[in-house]
């Protein structure tokens, strides 16, 4: 026996309300992605100039700075997870957390390092809180529209931890897990090592015959580098936050789109069942009337 007409109608109404909500969330996410992408594009010139400056110093002076020094056998690592503050974004936060867990396992088991988690976004904080794990530091409240100020705050905390000697609880390596925004359809969780910096790696070799400008440094290369590198670290964090924000919104939009589609299918199925139940009720009523009438007709002549 299928559910009653009234029950079916109630269920359809409730799915319709859900659909309205998911549809609204989809539209909001879609409009915010544009803003997030614009923010990422606006930050690009700064990244480019900063990178050029760092490469210039790295090329013309011996890079020997605390922030670039590789430790031979790292004892302790920090892992910064960048997740969202709110859910309903499909697998966005959980894939970052999963990538973070894998990285932690690798650092812990293969290299025997102690891992200190730094968390950004309520989802990661909730995940660690529920498991009652120790957290080094956490930030939340800006996952879908991060500003440079927040990036700077995170970067300062990480740099401080990095510059603290290992014996006093400092870390030897810092990794970031964030989500790279490839396209509207593809966002991939990415792990990068933030510190120690690998500055030289990205430097483009000059084309043969081309002369690199012979820079004059003021006051001197060391001081310039000393002031550039923290900015570079903050810029990397800012970049990761912006990419993650765009990815979060894209994931949410996609998740909400499929939720809306599912709700639509459900509504159609329920409407059909409802029609069927109504028709069955009518048919039953007619056959009852016909049955009653014929029973009366059958009994009439005998009277």
């Amino acid at each position, binding site marked *: 026996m299928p559910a009653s007409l009234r029950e079916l109608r109630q269920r359809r109404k409730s799915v319709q309300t859900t659909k309205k909500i998911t549809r609204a969330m989809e539209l909001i996410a879609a409009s915010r992605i544009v803003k997030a992408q614009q*923010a990422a594009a*606006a*930050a690009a*010139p*700064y990244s480019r*100039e*900063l990178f*050029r*400056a760092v490469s*210039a*110093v790295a090329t013309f002076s011996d890079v020997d700075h605390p922030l670039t020094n590789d430790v031979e056998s790292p004892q302790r690592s920090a892992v910064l997870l960048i997740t969202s503050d709110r859910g309903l974004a499909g697998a966005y936060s959980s894939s970052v957390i999963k990538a973070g867990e894998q990285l932690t396992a690798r650092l812990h088991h293969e290299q025997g390092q102690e891992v200190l988690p730094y968390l950004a976004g309520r989802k990661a904080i909730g995940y660690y809180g529920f498991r009652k794990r120790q957290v080094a530091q956490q930030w939340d409240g800006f996952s879908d529209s991060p*500003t*440079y*100020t927040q*990036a*700077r*705050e995170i970067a*300062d905390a990480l740099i401080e931890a990095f510059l603290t000697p290992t014996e006093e609880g400092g870390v030897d390596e810092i990794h970031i897990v964030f989500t790279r925004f490839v396209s509207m359809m593809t966002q991939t969780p990415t792990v990068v090592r933030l510190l120690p910096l690998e500055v030289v790696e990205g430097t483009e070799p000059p084309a043969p015959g081309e002369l690199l*400008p*012979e*820079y*004059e*440094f*003021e*006051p001197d290369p060391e*001081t*310039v580098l000393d*002031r*550039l590198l923290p*900015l570079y670290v*903050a*810029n990397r964090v*800012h970049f990761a936050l912006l990419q993650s924000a765009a990815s979060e919104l894209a994931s949410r939009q996609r998740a909400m789109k499929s939720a809306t589609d599912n709700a639509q299918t459900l509504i159609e199925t329920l409407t059909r069942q409802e029609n069927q139940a109504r028709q069955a009720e009518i048919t039953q009523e007619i056959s009852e009337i016909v049955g009653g009438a014929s029973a009366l007709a059958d009994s009439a002549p005998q009277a």
Partner: protein
Amino acid sequence: MAEPYQVEVVAADRRVWEGRAVNVIVRTTEGDIGILPGHEPLLAALVPCAAEIVTAEGGREVIALDGGFVSVTPERVSLLAQYASLATEVKPDQAQRELDKLQVLMDSGDATDEEQHRYHLAVAQLAVLRRQGNEPH
């Protein structure tokens, strides 16, 4: 007179100004420097200051920088700072209030890094306004 060169002023989250110029005056850790066309390649650390740009058309742009760097190559000059604002974006009363508020923190010696940056930016913004000749009342 030599050819004007390309100038770009970028803050951490946006491009503040871009155009062609014939002279850029900024204050480095060593003192004021004016960059004319054909300047030798230079990479210098800046102190919070009001950068002055004389555009190719002869106009004048004043921009508040909270520190940062100036990078000069044969093709272009770029000023990069974490925070920067155009003279037209600066509101005199607001900058003064901000400065007064942060001054107290700076004097007491427990200003955070962020507050120090805001303080430097406010100082630079007021310097911009003085250059423009309309001091806050």
